[in-house]
């Protein structure tokens, strides 16, 4: 065998199966390339649950596929919470590192992966906010009202009907109710903190936040 023609092609599938193929003539080289394409395609075509399962087994390709799929959602949420690109990047990175280390805790029977991932992102970001003792600025420069009005791209969400009905339900709320939701859910403020921030009586905050959620639930259920 001519060693000058000797090429090694090494593939790893699910960290368990390895292929080594040696090229001794042009046809073998073709076979090697086709196997690689098939492998990459196999990872990209897996659903979230299958990918999470592979991530739990330490599959880095599956992990990066999930990153490519959902990083824009996680980054957008953390940007909404922080309104600071550097902090949002750090929180996004922390969120995906948690996905890497805790993928085995994901239970598909309890819900899909994206809400689970976004819940981790929200908690990660809010923990950071609380750690730094930061409060929302309520400035109009980054008006969250714009975010409520923007319709997400349907192709980027797994359950289009679900979020579209929610979008319509949110539009039915008054700007005041949306502001309360923004402070409570995206800024992590409690009743008392919202009352201090808006300079409202505590009872008013409780009543209006409850009314906002009840209306949202009602509208969402009817749609």
């Amino acid at each position, binding site marked *: 065998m001519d060693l000058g023609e000797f090429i090694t092609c090494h593939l790893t599938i699910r960290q368990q199966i390895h292929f080594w193929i040696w090229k001794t003539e042009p046809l073998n080289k073709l076979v090697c390339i086709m196997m690689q394409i098939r492998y990459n395609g196999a990872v990209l075509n897996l659903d979230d649950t299958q990918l999470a399962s592979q991530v739990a087994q330490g599959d880095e390709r599956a992990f990066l596929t999930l*990153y490519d799929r959902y990083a*824009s959602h996680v980054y957008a949420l953390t940007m909404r919470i922080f309104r600071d690109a550097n902090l949002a990047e750090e929180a996004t990175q922390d969120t995906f590192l948690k996905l890497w280390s805790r993928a085995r805790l994901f239970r598909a029977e309890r819900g899909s992966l994206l809400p689970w991932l976004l819940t981790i992102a929200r908690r990660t970001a809010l923990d950071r906010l609380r750690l730094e003792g930061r409060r929302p600025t309520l400035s109009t420069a980054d008006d969250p009202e714009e975010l409520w009005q923007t319709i997400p*791209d349907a192709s980027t969400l797994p359950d289009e009907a679900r979020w579209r009905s*929610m979008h319509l339900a949110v539009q039915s709320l008054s700007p005041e109710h949306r502001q309360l939701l923004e402070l409570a859910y995206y800024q992590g403020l409690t009743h008392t903190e919202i009352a201090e921030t808006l300079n409202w009586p505590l009872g008013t905050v409780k009543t209006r936040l409850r009314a906002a*959620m009840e209306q949202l*639930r009602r509208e969402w259920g009817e749609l």
Partner: protein
Amino acid sequence: MTQDQIDDIFRENIPAYALDALDVEDARAVKSHLQTCASCRTELAEYRALSETLLMMTPPKTPPAALRRRLQGQLPSAQKRSSPRFVWSFNQLALGLTLIILLALNVSSYLQIRALQKQQVQLASQLQNGQAAIAMLAYPDTESLLIKADNISGTLLVDKSRNIAMILVWNLPQLDSTQTYQAWLIDPQGKRTDAGIFRSQPSQPYTSATIFSANDLTNFVGIGVTIEPSAGSPQPTGQRVFKVDF
């Protein structure tokens, strides 16, 4: 207050609980109530589904490409690649070998010097003993007594006026490091007084040991030597080597 009324009070807080917006005490009370109230748990599940969907309402925003690279750099395969692996270059290998050789030479020289110093101390001691023996033989009061035992022979020089005695003995066996020879002065009642310890001198055909007595040698009637533990003993405990009467 009826159970339904109590449930209603807690139920009012369920929407805020689903948003994590309750103050700590209120949240604790709702959490406790949820353990016993199935209808509130059902209500909470609906609000949780609502809040989960709210999370997806933010329009996606593409993060910088550098973030993916940073994240990839923290995965195990990248950590393995970036873990420092020391590769010996020829120069580093040569430097390392040179340092090892120099260190070995230094240790060897130190050990040689220690051995020479020890030898020097032994030779000085022997020379001193030899000079003392010659000096003693020159005194008219020195007695020369014969040492005779199994395979051992020698001379005991005793100068009672100066309270000095010297043992010169041939073929004294070498002892291991746990043992030593110990000399004893013997009084008329047979009582033994420590007169010092000494070791045989393998580099010399004979062994010499000088005894400087603090007591008057005229009070003693002989000298004996026994084998004792390396630090010596207050009284003879070991095998007798020889005994000489004055």
